């Protein structure tokens, strides 16, 4: 079942063409990695899917409905977003994660909202730091906090912009495992921008390679991530160790 369809999307920042005729579709429950060099349009693509910026041409369909037919709030209930950057403020971690529940309540958070916050904090191992201020967390803890915030809103589609940046090895693996588990157990669909090609290879069902705002390649990780594509897109010679699912730069 297709949950996400992008068709002919173009986007530009002034004269900078960030996305050029991007089309693909994603099935529910898939983990999709978007890879590509810096500035290739990964962040922009995620923002377009979340309705944060509007494409100049083309359309995005979530769950069969075009984005234009969602109110911002009803879209927020379905799509969760883990941004690459945010303005951290001395809010407590608990209040920060609770702010992710905003689309679900009208005036004040309900007991269920609070339950989801605790659950989300537990899933990233941060429940004991719930009373800390965001400004008093380490870079990796903050990254997990942002993921918890997105999880708290129980999205059907989770967009993650470099979710493993700033994380130590253990949490890189744990975050990716959590994402994989969520997709399998709750049918959540995850689209993540990644820089680590080995991780993309290990944890995704589908890989989209962006290059200068265009889809350069798309498909199963073993097909898409190969020496030729890496050289063409990154300009780097590398070897793919298929049995280990690892990429070694030469």
């Amino acid at each position: 079942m297709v949950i996400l369809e992008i068709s002919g999307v173009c986007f530009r920042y002034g004269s900078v063409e960030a996305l050029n005729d991007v089309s693909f579709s994603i099935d529910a429950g898939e983990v999709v990695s978007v890879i590509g060099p810096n500035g290739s349009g990964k962040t922009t693509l995620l923002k377009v899917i979340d309705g944060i910026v509007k494409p100049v041409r083309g359309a995005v369909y979530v769950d069969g409905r075009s984005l234009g037919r969602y109110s911002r709030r009803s879209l927020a209930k379905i799509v969760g977003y883990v941004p690459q950057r945010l303005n951290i403020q001395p809010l407590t971690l608990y209040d920060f994660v609770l702010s992710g529940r905003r689309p679900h309540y009208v005036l004040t958070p309900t007991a269920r909202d609070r339950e989801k916050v605790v659950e989300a904090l537990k899933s990233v191992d941060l429940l004991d730091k719930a009373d800390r201020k965001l400004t008093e967390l380490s870079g990796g803890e903050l990254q997990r906090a942002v993921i918890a915030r997105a999880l708290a809103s129980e999205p059907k589609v989770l967009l993650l912009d470099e979710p493993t940046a700033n994380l130590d090895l253990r949490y890189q693996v744990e975050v990716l495992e959590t994402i994989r588990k969520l997709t399998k157990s709750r049918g959540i669909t995850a689209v993540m921008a990644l820089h680590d090609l080995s991780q993309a290879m290990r944890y995704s069902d589908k890989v989209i390679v962006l290059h200068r705002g265009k889809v350069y390649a798309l498909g199963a990780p073993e097909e898409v991530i190969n020496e030729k594509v890496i050289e063409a897109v990154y300009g780097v010679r590398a070897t793919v160790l298929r049995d280990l699912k690892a990429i070694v730069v030469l």
Partner: protein
Amino acid sequence: MPRYRVGYLPLFLLLTALLLVLSLVDLIVGPYTISMGDILSYLLRGPDVSKATTVVIGMRLRRVLTAIAAGGLLGTSGYVVQANLRNPLASPFTLGIQHAAALGAGVGILVLGGGGVVGPRSATSATILIANPFTVSILAFGASMLHTALVLTLAYVTGLTIYSIILVALALSFTVQAVLALLQYLVFNEIQVATLMFWTFGSVERTSWLEVEVLLVAYVVMAVATWVVAPDLDLMLLGDDIASSSGVNPRVFRAVSMSTAALATALTISFVGVVGFVCLVSGHIARLVFGWSARRSGLASGLVGGLTMLAADVISRTVISPVTLPIGITTTIVGVPVLIALVLGGGRGYTRD
């Protein structure tokens, strides 16, 4: 279930209690001594016109309520603007509405002959009167709203981002200041200059009961509205993208909440003059004590604003009694030490990050 180990309710009650105590002090102190008994009988049995104290209590009650409502409005709007612009140094005054208000008041004083000096002209003995205070207020209010509309419209054209708002506001306020300076230089006589100066300094004693009622109602509306949109204020603080992805249109929210804050501020300064410091400082004090979540510090900023104004009024009326110092000056005397103490002591929210 977590959380909130600190009890916030006790803190709120403490603030409210402080507000009551300061109100009483403000009612009691002054050249004409009022006793607790007088106040009790005024409050319980209603104004008794045969008593001399009734007039004094009525006058002082008006200024107490004005201080609470004006401080509350200024504190809350300052808080809202700071969250919106994600800038601790911002306030509705960043938009430059005080200059527009002064220009409006200036025009009122000029055109309507709204000012005059009574008695010998020295700083302490002369009484400067604003002959037509209501008209002056309305003109000040109109000018500041016009200014706000201009700022927000121009900023809208350039995307309604934080920077566009601040830059446009800066440019427009310098224009307004230049026009006012030009007026004072070319057209105003010395009395008109003095009257405008007096208006600008701020005072909680020139409000009529009607104006007090308007301010109180506005404060209640503003406090409730701030409470309602508090979760969205938190989102705005985290960034436009986050707000957008959590269901809040940052541009619409910013336009609406900034205009509301500007409206509240314009209303207040039209009635009590330019009392800028409360606007800037209340939000900080509230956040340092109650934390950054807008549900708690948003409401608290209004109470802190009221407290600051009340304390300032007590000081205004006692330091060199019987002369009353302008409250625009004494709020700074109250606010600066509190802010510095908090920043030195517990202001980690700002010094970190």
